[in-house]
């Protein structure tokens, strides 16, 4: 693949498979009663858009391994519904203000309603997974459900670890702690599950799926760090979330962990005090100070280099998995995703 062709192919394919997934989602999100109190709100986050990375990776992997794209659409829709369910609950847990350029669901409707909307999205995701049965048969449907159960477990465990770090104001963290957390919290549902399920559908076999953990881990971790970098550096008009929101929330990113390790004793004490306070008691001045220290200690450049290293490792793992597959647009799309995650703005 040429460097110039890759981003174009990735963007085009994301658009195409995103459209395929949205068409399936429309069926699950159609208006029904109780609309005002539930289903109109359930459709809110999915209708705000999104890049459709996860469902597209699932469909492309299935196709690269020989399946028809339609075979993976229910799983792709399920993944998007579960992703939105996680977002609704994560926004509550993280006390986030913005999602995809608009106020978060709990900011608009309150926490109890948002929690219920997240539950409903999860159930719709499960419905979509069950709907695989008509096309894929009971055995493959059961295998995909088992994969979904594991993905949900890993994601919840990862999110719990991160919330625990914030609740207990854990400061003594290394990069390996971060990578273990992000493997569970982000990688499983962003890249590992879509790849594993795509391969399962393509090969009709659950053998040798562990290799997708390596590929998905490196790709997903690079994706997450780039996402955290965009939170610090992104264009507010395009990013869709609150710039510096991660600092406001005290989120343990690679950049914050680096700063905690590099700061002087006095600075570390001030940082610890800042992180110990609830979000409402953190000031814009404090946030600007943390951001300035990240610049001062090159924590942002450090995060960028870590992301590039992990993306490079994911290319290596891509070659090990996909190297023997016949050339196809879908194979080139998955390959191109590695560069895309670092270049997206």
């Amino acid at each position: 693949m040429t460097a110039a062709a890759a981003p174009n192919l990735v963007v085009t394919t994301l658009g195409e498979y995103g459209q395929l997934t949205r068409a399936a989602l429309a069926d699950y999100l159609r208006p029904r009663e109780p609309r005002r109190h539930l289903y109109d709100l359930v459709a809110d986050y999915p209708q705000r858009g999104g890049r459709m990375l996860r469902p597209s990776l699932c469909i492309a992997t299935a196709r690269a391994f020989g399946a028809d794209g339609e075979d993976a659409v229910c799983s792709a829709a399920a993944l998007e519904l579960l992703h939105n369910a996680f977002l609704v609950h994560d926004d509550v847990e993280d006390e986030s203000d913005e999602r995809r350029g608009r106020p978060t669901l709990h900011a608009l409707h309150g926490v109890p309603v948002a929690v219920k909307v997240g539950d409903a999205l999860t159930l719709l995701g499960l419905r979509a997974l069950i709907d695989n049965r008509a096309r894929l048969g009971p055995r493959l449907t059961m295998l995909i459900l088992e994969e979904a159960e594991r993905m949900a477990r890993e994601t919840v465990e990862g999110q719990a670890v991160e919330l625990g770090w914030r609740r207990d104001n854990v400061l003594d963290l290394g990069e390996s702690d971060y990578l273990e957390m992000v493997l569970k919290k982000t990688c499983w549902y962003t890249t590992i599950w879509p790849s594993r399920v795509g391969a399962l559908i393509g090969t009709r076999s659950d053998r040798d799926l562990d290799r997708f953990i390596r590929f998905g881990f490196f790709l997903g971790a690079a994706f997450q760090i780039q996402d955290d970098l965009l939170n610090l550096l992104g264009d507010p008009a395009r990013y869709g979330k609150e710039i510096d929101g991660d600092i406001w929330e005290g989120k343990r990113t690679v950049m914050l962990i680096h700063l905690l390790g590099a700061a002087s004793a006095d600075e570390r004490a001030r940082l610890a005090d800042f992180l110990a306070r609830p979000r409402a008691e953190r000031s814009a001045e404090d946030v600007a100070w943390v951001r300035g220290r990240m610049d001062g200690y090159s924590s942002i450049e450090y995060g960028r280099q870590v992301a590039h290293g992990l993306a490079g490792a994911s290319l290596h793992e891509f070659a090990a998995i996909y190297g023997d597959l016949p050339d196809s647009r879908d194979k080139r799309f998955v390959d191109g995703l590695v560069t895309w995650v670092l270049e997206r703005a």
Partner: protein
Amino acid sequence: MSASDRIRRPPLDRTEPIRAWSSLFGAGPLNDVVTRSVELGYRVVDEYIRQGQKAAARFGSPSLGTETMASDMQDLGVRMVQYTSDVFGLWFEMMNVMLAGGSPFRPGNGIAAPPPPAEPPPPTRAAPADGGGARVRVEVASTRPAEVSVDLRPDAAGRRLVVHGLRAVDPAKPRLADVSIVADGDQVTVRVRVPPDVPAAVYNGLIVDEETSRPAGTVSVRIAP
């Protein structure tokens, strides 16, 4: 012209291609941060996979046999309820009703039988395998205990099939190269010769439709230690 007058090229900065992680995206030379992060990443993910395999070996793989499918679904429901809110409970109660009421998960409804337990075969042995609509014959030549599994897509029968060398997850292990597949009508024969010095591992490979170059199934060979 004396030797000292001859124009010489300056010494080369490098004598090998740059194959560094950090140069893949146009960054500078390999540096400590990138190297350390990649090494750390491999340590984290390999340990994670190792722990997962250990846990799987301890508890055994879940059976997908028809007789256990319903209880598997119920176990799955119970576990998912633990992870999320109580709404799951209602959903899985519905699922239990569905299972009890003659669902598609009941026995004898097209669910593939569970794979046979691992059993060391004699040096050469032919056995049937899971081949969808095709009749599959597996011939193994091995002085070591080996288990061969073949999955074929239902539409693979009658096509010209090819299988490349099988690979282990560990890229350092050599390929299992002496593998062939012959399709004759609806009969598909897979032949595997295991060299005596091949390391113990699970080796996997794709079966490809020669005409369309699309995957048509998988071959998996487990060599016991």
